[in-house]
């Protein structure tokens, strides 16, 4: 099996795509967003509850490929209970990475991505960028609703 595939499907991605973190439905969300990847019909819903400048809870549900599921799972792990500012920044950073055609970001940024840096290779495959970003589009939208 080619190196390229191992670079794309980093172990952390495969792990998160199977043992997924944060799946579930919130009883009373402040914001909720449903997103579809029209190519494959993959979909996800991200729900958020805010509390004092924090993303008190983020939960998600959906179906999709390993890339999209891992991205959602890691999102949950990194952001559940975090400051809203961190959520915004991480989302922007991740989008920057995904539009970088497979190049790493500056070292500090790359470090800041933590587990999400495993997606660096995904950005080499334009058709998969949407998979990686699907959950993050939903998060952004859900946050905007919650703050409105």
């Amino acid at each position, binding site marked *: *099996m080619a190196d*390229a595939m191992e670079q794309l499907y980093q172990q952390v991605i495969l792990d998160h795509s199977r043992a997924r973190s944060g799946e579930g439905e919130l009883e009373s969300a402040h914001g909720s967003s449903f997103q579809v990847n029209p190519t*494959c019909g993959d979909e996800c819903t991200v729900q958020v509850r805010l509390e004092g400048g924090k993303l008190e809870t983020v939960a998600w549900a959906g179906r999709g490929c390993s890339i999209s599921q891992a991205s959602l799972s890691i999102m949950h792990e990194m952001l559940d209970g975090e400051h809203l500012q961190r959520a915004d920044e991480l989302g922007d950073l991740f989008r920057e990475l995904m539009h970088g055609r497979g190049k790493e970001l500056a070292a500090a940024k790359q470090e800041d991505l933590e587990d999400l840096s495993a997606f660096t290779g995904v950005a080499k495959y334009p058709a998969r960028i949407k998979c990686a970003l699907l959950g993050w589009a939903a998060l952004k939208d859900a946050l905007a609703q919650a703050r409105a």
Partner: protein
Amino acid sequence: MIDIERIRADFPLLDREVRDGKRLVYLDTGATSQKPRQVIEAERHFYEHTNAAVHRGAHAVAEEATEAYEAARTAVAEFVGAEFDELVWAKNATEGLNLVAYGFLNATLNARMGRSSAGEEQFVLAEGDEIVVTELEHHANLVPWQELAAKTGAQLRWIGVTDEGRLNPDDFDVIGEKTRILAFTHASNVTGAITPVEEIVRRAQAAGAFTVLDACQSAAHLPVDLHQLGVDFAAFSGHKMLAPTGIGALYGRRELLEALPPFLTGGSMVELVTMESTSFMPPPQRFEAGTQMVAQAAGFHAAVDYLSEVGMEAFAAHEQKLTQRLLDGIAEVPGVRVLGPQDAHDRLAVVAFEVEGVHPHDVGQVLDDAGIAVRVGHHCAQPVHRRLGVHASARASAGVHTTEAEIDAFIEGLHRVRSFFGAAEGRS
């Protein structure tokens, strides 16, 4: 028998390498076909020698352009068993199907506004009327009818699909007195199933309903004779049958095209225009507003010439062998389920499948890494996927240039998919 090596030499793109030097195995003809150099050359030749406005100029080049354009119409019409004036150019099959649906809509609106032309009444829809489609349809032959129904108050009904991925004959009874339009596919782009057209046309005719055939997959892979099939309308796309992108065709029985109100309006489809009102040309021009895809028509001409030279019977026989090999090969790979009939009978070499525990995107990615191009997703047919219990699938589809060795490479790729994701799971 077809001479596959000679054919392959005609397709420049097949020489391509992908993903760091891997030889391309193109198994995505169901989405769009590759082009032989004869087609590419026909378009180039048109631009370099014959390019001019069609049906509009009196100068030498315009005359030649017009002749090339109309000769293409005759050739493509003949290829599908139709007369030249029964064939309307469209940018793709989707536009062709929309043209028919909007024809019904416009007839209905014209009647409401008291401005019907002679013969239009037969296309007027009213509440209580029914439009029948099938669960096997590509979105192109479903959404236009949903829209037409919603805008006219007609009711949409449908024929279901069996577990095997064929139209369910038990449902043919939805075709009845109230049915005004019956839109159905000749062959599914997901399950590969070929429709028993005669049976359905017979029922539609008995019910007095118009038939609209989606011939996208069939015209590209089987000998098709529209007059013999007896359908009222049919649509297909050039890009699926070796022709350029940007061109397709709508067939309509002459009497029906003559009565159908226009869809797109503008230049070249009118007779007399005042600021207040306009009269329209007879078909096919009535349905060809504005400057058409002329160079692409020349390419389409070359494509049907190419296919005729190969011979559609021989081509179909070749594909049937490939279908069998695909199905046999897949059957050997554990955990892979075919969405569609399990044998090559009445079936195209379009094989969608799911790999247990691996999302189609991931299946496609690992195949792609080995140079094997398949399609992943819902292939613009969400309902049949849902019916078969999945949301998406991967799909291998063969073309006139596909070899048995390529099928074998694909099967090997499937094993690799399993071991890659299986190994990572610690399963192998």
